[in-house]
């Protein structure tokens, strides 16, 4: 029996839909690279990456302050968010009564859905004043005026820590739940208490999944733009304390792309290339650790 025409046409249409992702990824890579490459070729990749001064007015483009800013803010937010996230995951997978777990999970899901500008606004009116208070009243004698505004590394890291919690919690919980029952039962049968079982059996067994969660949280932190713009102070200078105002790479693009042109715009695209490469490397790591689908959209 001959196939109806639509039986041949529709799979073709569906194939085109499926190929769109590939097309988009290629286009994104090509266009960002083409726009940013002239800048990298002119100044040299390492001069651009390690240059300490960013002065678009003078045509001086070095993104070391932003690279350092991104790294410091990301690491500090992981330092705060990861312990809290893993503890919450252990709670959900092992300790929580079913009702409490369901509610906590709903709450975390909501946390993931809240727009980043809302986090930013929340940070501006609660966390920034808190940091300002701590900086001026507890450490006032040691800090220069620009470190006492409240806007800076600490405020940005606190806001980011909250934002990456959902990613870390949900992936770590999945990893803990994926540990075969026999491991836990075997440990219990040997008379090992619950907590010891969690620390010495479940966590090591779930390690790769938890690491993947942390790496993805890290990716989210590095890519985040709006919330950080609102609380980080955005000065393109090397930070000198955790109260220093700081600019991240994504913040640099978001802040200046609106009015940039010529070589300035190229420099921002080049910043985008660096950001793109960092994220691809990170995702590569996540893939190595898990050997399965790495990235998960919130």
């Amino acid at each position, binding site marked *: 029996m001959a196939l109806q025409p639509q039986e041949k046409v529709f*799979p073709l249409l569906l194939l085109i839909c499926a190929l769109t992702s590939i097309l988009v*990824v290629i286009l994104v890579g090509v266009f*960002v690279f083409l726009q940013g490459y002239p800048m990298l070729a002119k100044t040299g990749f390492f001069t651009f990456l390690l240059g300490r001064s960013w002065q678009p007015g003078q045509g001086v483009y070095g993104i070391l302050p932003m690279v350092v800013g991104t790294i410091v803010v990301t690491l500090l937010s992981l330092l705060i968010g990861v312990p809290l996230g893993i503890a919450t995951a252990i709670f959900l997978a092992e300790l929580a009564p079913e009702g409490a777990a369901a509610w906590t999970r709903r709450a975390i899901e909501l946390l993931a859905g809240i727009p980043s500008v809302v986090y930013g*606004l929340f940070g501006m009116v609660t966390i920034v004043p808190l940091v300002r208070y701590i900086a001026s009243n507890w450490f006032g004698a040691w800090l220069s005026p620009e470190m006492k505004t409240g806007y800076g590394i600490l405020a940005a890291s606190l806001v980011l820590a909250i934002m990456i919690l959902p990613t870390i919690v949900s992936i770590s919980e999945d990893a803990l739940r994926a540990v075969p029952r026999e491991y836990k039962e075997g440990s219990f049968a040997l008379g090992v208490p619950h907590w010891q079982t969690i620390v010495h059996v479940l966590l090591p067994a779930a390690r790769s999944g938890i690491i993947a969660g942390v790496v993805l949280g890290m990716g989210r932190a590095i890519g985040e733009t709006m919330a950080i713009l609102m609380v980080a102070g955005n000065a393109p200078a090397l930070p000198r304390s955790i109260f220093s105002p700081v600019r991240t790479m*994504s913040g640099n693009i978001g802040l200046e*792309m609106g009015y940039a042109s010529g070589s300035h715009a190229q420099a921002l695209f080049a910043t985008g290339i660096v950001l793109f490469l960092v994220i691809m490397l990170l995702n590569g790591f996540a893939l190595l650790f898990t050997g399965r689908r790495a990235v998960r*959209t919130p």
Partner: protein
Amino acid sequence: MMSMQAKERLAKAVIWGAALITVCILALIIGYILVQGIAKLSLSFFLENPRRMGSEGGIFSPLIGTIYFTCLTMLLAAPVGIGAAVYLTEFTREGPLVRVIRFATDALAGIPSIVIGLFGFAFFVVFLKPLTGGWSILSGSLTAFCMILPTVVRASEEAIKAVPAAYREGSLALGASKWQTVLWVVLPSAMPGILTGVLLGVGRVIGETAPLLLTLGGSLLIPRSIFQPARTLSMHLYLVAMETGEFSVAFGTAAVLVIVILLLNLLSHTLMRRLMIRIGGR
């Protein structure tokens, strides 16, 4: 030296404490935004245009902009995303091509939104200016389409995979063609799950700001067509808070956003429950 039991109890208390902190942070954020913002919400706040860069007046034009932008983005992303999911689950086997498609989808999901924004600016705003009108709702929607495509594809894939094989076999056994089976049996069964994925996409589109700063234009005028610039509520919140420092308007806008996200969340849970019932066999 602490006894084993005391240690056990202490450790569990710490874990409970951490979980409590997580939940409290969430309650604090949502509570704070709603308390600060809800006083601002009135009919005139919704129906008046912003004045003086948004520091006075309401949010009418950003609201219209958000609706235009969200609808157009989903109109683009839903068919393509669902189509891709149907292809990946029903019309092909695991092979090199499928692996490349999956890899590309994962990679796309991992690209920071600001980088997608840069691409959108270079491609849709500058390169395709004659077609998109430069900074416009269309440019913004196409950019957002690139960003949320992976979300829609994956959620739809999960939903379609959850449809029991017996449904397909039953339909094929009755003499229905592959295409008829997909269209009349598989897709309707998976629809609640697919809609959940679409709602997830809507939530992301409404919340996303960074790429729109580079592509949507940020105009405060009411858009008359998709070729004109506009701004969304999230963008409005950011611009008002950063440029005018008028926090009452920012909080009012934030409250609207949080309420919308809460409603979307509620709706997607209802849909998910329906999917479970449908597939779990009545």
